Every structure is written in structure tokens, then in C-alpha cells.
């Protein structure tokens, strides 16, 4: 009795363990430090150096107006792999991230892993792995 029950259950468990890496996961991105309550917050999820460099399209993207100083975005069905997220906040809604005459950004931005660099981080600095489980990251806008 015991043995006969165990058999199919063990099989199912084995099956799940085997196919899990091929299953998709959700990524929840919590943005903190949203300074302005205007315009549009835009996120891009990329899965390669080329995507990070703007030479391949993002695997997913999303955008929404700010709601308070924290915003949450969920990206569904991401295959296991390596990803990075970049965020810009088009505060005045003119369709771009504004900068001044010497190229200093004057609207908000942030990156996965929150690298402490005063430039665009590298792919290696921003990338992180997603496995079978749903994942959640925090990004501080600055």
C-alpha cells in the first residue's frame, strides 16, 4: 500500500524536478524613491549584453504613471536565465529622459542590483539570475 502510493508521487516529484528549469517565472520589480508624481515610469527587461547595449530588443517592457514614492511592476513568464532591468522616469512626459547641456540626467533612473556608479552600469554589474522560482528585486531610483 505504502509502496504503491509512493511510486506515482515520487514519479511526479521527479518529473517536476526535471522540467522545472524550463518553466517560466514571474519577476516582481519594486521601485523605491520615485521623486516626482508626474510623467511615466518606463522599465525594460533585457537578457543579454546586446539587449543591455540597445542592440537587441528587450524581452519585456512596461510603463505606468507613478503612484507614490514606490511602484511595483510584475513581468510574467520569464524563462530561467540571466536578466537586467533598466528604469527611467520621464518626469515631464516629453518621451525621453531629459539631460542638461553636458549630458547629466535631470530625471530619475535606476538599474537592477543598484550599482553604486555614476554612469550607466555594465551588463555584468546589473545582471542577475532567474531560476524556476518567482523572483523579486528592489531598484532605487536616483
Amino acid at each position, binding site marked *: 500500500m505504502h509502496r504503491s502510493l509512493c511510486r506515482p508521487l515520487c514519479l511526479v516529484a521527479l518529473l517536476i524536478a526535471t522540467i522545472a528549469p524550463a518553466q517560466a517565472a514571474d519577476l516582481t520589480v519594486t521601485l523605491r524613491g520615485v521623486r516626482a508624481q508626474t510623467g511615466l515610469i518606463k522599465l525594460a527587461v533585457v537578457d543579454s549584453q546586446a539587449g*543591455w*547595449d*540597445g*542592440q537587441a530588443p528587450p524581452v519585456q517592457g512596461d510603463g505606468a504613471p507613478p503612484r507614490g514614492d514606490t511602484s511595483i511592476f510584475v513581468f510574467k513568464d520569464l524563462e530561467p536565465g540571466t536578466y537586467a532591468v533598466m528604469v*527611467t522616469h520621464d518626469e515631464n512626459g516629453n518621451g525621453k*529622459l*531629459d*539631460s*542638461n*547641456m*553636458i*549630458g*547629466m*540626467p*535631470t*530625471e*530619475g*533612473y535606476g538599474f537592477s542590483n*543598484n*550599482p*553604486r*556608479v*555614476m*554612469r*550607466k552600469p*555594465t*551588463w555584468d554589474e546589473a545582471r542577475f539570475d532567474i531560476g524556476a522560482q518567482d523572483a523579486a528585486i528592489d531598484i*532605487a531610483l*536616483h
Partner: protein
Amino acid sequence: MDRRRFLHNLLSGATALAVAPALLRGQDALAGDPARFAAGLRERPWLAGWKSVQSETLGPENVRIEGRLPAGFGGTLYRNGPAWTERAGFRYEHWFDGDGMVHGWRFNGDGTLTHRARMVATPKFTREQEAGRFLYPVAGTSVPDMQPIRNNDDANAANTSVTMINGRLFALCEAGSAFELDPDQLATLGPVTWRHDLAAIPFSAHPLVDRDGSVWNFGSISMMGGNGLVVWHIGRDGTLASADVLETPVPGYLHSFAMTDRHLVFVLIPFRYLDGAGAFFERLRFRQDQPLRIAVVDKHAPAQARWFEADFAAIYHFGDAYERDGRIVLRAVQHLDVEEARSPLKAAMNGDGDVHGGNGPLRELVLDLRRGDARWEETGIAGIEFPVFDARTRSAGPARLYAPVHASASVAPYFNGVGAFDVPRDRRQVHDYGRDVLVEEHLFVPRPSSTRPDDGWLVGTLLDAARGRSGIAVLDAGRVEAGPVAQAWLPYTVPLGFHGHFAAA
């Protein structure tokens, strides 16, 4: 100039281009120790000038004016200076680091004076106040666990000076934007964007007012990804008249500038910038083996300069400049010890009495426009700083200078007198406030009914270390040696500041 480099990078993904390493980096904690400073303060009460404030506001405090204010004198002296220097057991060790506090010393017209002060609510101050610790880069100290910043204005301490244009009050700092303040309550209205593409471009702490009431200023963009200086011209109505980029041949540090009726003069002090981490003044090394590069700029063409070279000198402040017989002459206070120049009064910030420097000479930089050369000449005056003059002086000849001075033996290694200097006649008048008094910038206030240069008063602030009080004095500019005609003292001390602006009533 490399326009939009950061943005381009942000979007295209090119790597490893540090945009603003100067103002924005630093890792190792090398800070001063609050306990050590507190111990020093118990031994040396004059260190109250470098003591951190711990509240966002001071006052309003009404005090009686001693003596008699001159008829026609009235208004508010606004002053700014680094004031908040300690948080969570961490103390800045560079005098230029503290967050700015703006003071209003208002002469009420009824024999009383009201002092009030308020921290400038910069993004930096506001967020650090909330966090209870320092979070962002500063000019001269590496802060542990520094947070990323959007741009230089996130690290703007707004702590150096104030000016007023068309009734609007601005707190100034060479690191970034002017912050507009409410002139009555000193509440912060926010950073000023003179034009959209000029957001966060530095608007330095020593603007100069032209004969027509318009205002000239500069902002150095060399450490922020640009090359050279932005030359600002603000109309007397407070709107932008022009902003031009003056490219510079080498990196050069400058804190202030000088001008004549026709020309702006920018004196670039050569430096090199050490590799690695650290705050701006930790990594900067003045290059005494290199000449000064001096830009003479026609006010009608601010993007172009005629360049001169002169022997090295470390300078923060200029007096007047005048133009005569094909020559421009600038007065400058030289800091002889370049290490002291890199961190003035560093020992005081650390709670020590062993302060060096402060005895540098007043010199004249003579630019020969016909021959294209420049040379230094001596004035015989030394031991002054923060020189001012009556801006009504014709710019065809030298102005009379007014400045804090080492008047006699003093308890603190700081100025304890104020002087008036007539350089060509080798005449000086000095008032000695006494051994216990620290003397700050004294501004010239013109007598309203008069157009005669130097007809007016001096107004300046004091710190009486022996009696634990800060105060303000008014002197007749023509009789400086007679001392204050009126004086008022607060029941508390405030940190020493740098520069101010007098708004006549």
C-alpha cells in the same frame, strides 16, 4: 564639449565612462571624530565657529542694538556657511563640506535686530536628515556607504554664499544650482533652472553685479563631463540673458572671478587629479610648477577668451579689478601654503588649535593687453581674506578694499579685526575687535542718498569666543578705525560662515 555623453551612454550602453568622478566619488572613511572635536571645543571655545548645528532653524531672536545705527542704514544681512557637519558619530573634516545654513540679520528700524537662520533644504540635506546619517558625496571628505546620485545637484550643499536678484534670494555653491529661498522666512523654494538645458549646471558663489544691474557668474563643468566654464549673464529682472561655454585649454580650479566694465577675468589654477577614490579636495593637487592660465573675456563675446599666463598662485578671492592704459589690474589674496589652500582651517574642523595659513599676501595681477603678458606685483598687505569694495568705484582705477585682518594677538588663529586699505597711498585703517573675537566678511553698504564711492558703511558678523555669543557690527566705512557705531549680540553662537549679501530696506 561632449554633449549628452551621459545620456548617450545611459541608453546605448557604452561602459565605464565616469561622468563626474570629481564630485561624486569617495569610499574610504577618513573623517574627523565628533568626540575629538567636542574635547577640543572644551579647551578652545573659539572652535564654536566650527561646531555643527543640530537643528534646522535658529531663532527668530530679537535683540537690542547697542550704539546708534546711522540714519539711512536699514535692511537685512543675509549670510551663508557650512553649518551641519556631524551625523551619526561621523564628522566632516573639510570646512567646505557642511550643509548650508542661511542667516538673516534684520535691522528692524526700531533699535532692535532679529536674527533667524534656516538650513537650506537641498535634496542632500533633506534625505540625510531623514536617514539620520550622511549619504552623499561632499567636497573634501570621503563618506562611508555613499548612495548613488542623479547628478551633481544631489550632492549640492548650497553652503557658500547668498545673493539677491530682483528681490529673489538665492543660496549659492560652486557645486551646482542656485537654490531660491523665501527672503522673509528663509524657507527653500527649490533649485533654479535658468533654462531647461541648463538644469544642475553650476552657478558659483561669487556673482558680480554690472553697472546696469545685470549679474555675471560662471560654473565650472570640467569635472562633470564638459570642458571649461559656463559663463552666466542674468538680467537685472532675474531672467537669463545668456549662457555661453568658454572652453579652457587645461583643467583649472577657480572659486571666484573679477571684472572690469569691459572684461570678465577668469584665473585658472592648475591642478592634477589623483587616481583612485576620494573626495574632490582629497584628490586635487595644485601644480606649483605650472603657470596660471588667465582668460580675459569681452563681455560681448563670452565664449571667447584671450589667454594669459602668470606665475602660480593659489587664490580663492579677488578684490576689485580695474582697466587703465591698456592694462587690467586684479587684486587677489594669495594662499602661500598650497596644502592649507586645499583644506583651509582643517585643524579647526578636527578640533585642533594648530591651524596653519591665513597670512597670505594681497597681490596685484597685472595683465598687459598690448604685450599679452602678465605679472604679479606686491602690495605690502598680508593677513587678510574675504576682501570687498564699493561696486560704485569707477573701474578705471583701484578701489579701496575692506577685509577682515589679523589685527593683533588673538586667541583664535583667525581674523580679529577689520581693515580698510588704500593700496596706492599705502594707507590702512584697522579696527581691532580684541583677542577673543573672530571676525567674518564685512560687506560695504552704500549710503542711499550718495553716489560718491566709499560713502557708506561696513556690516559684518563676529563670534565672541570668550562670551559665547555671535554678533553683528556696523561701521562707518570712512572711519573704520573708530570701530562699530552700532553692534548687536545674540545669546548664542552660530558657526562661522563665508559670504553674504546686504539687502537694503
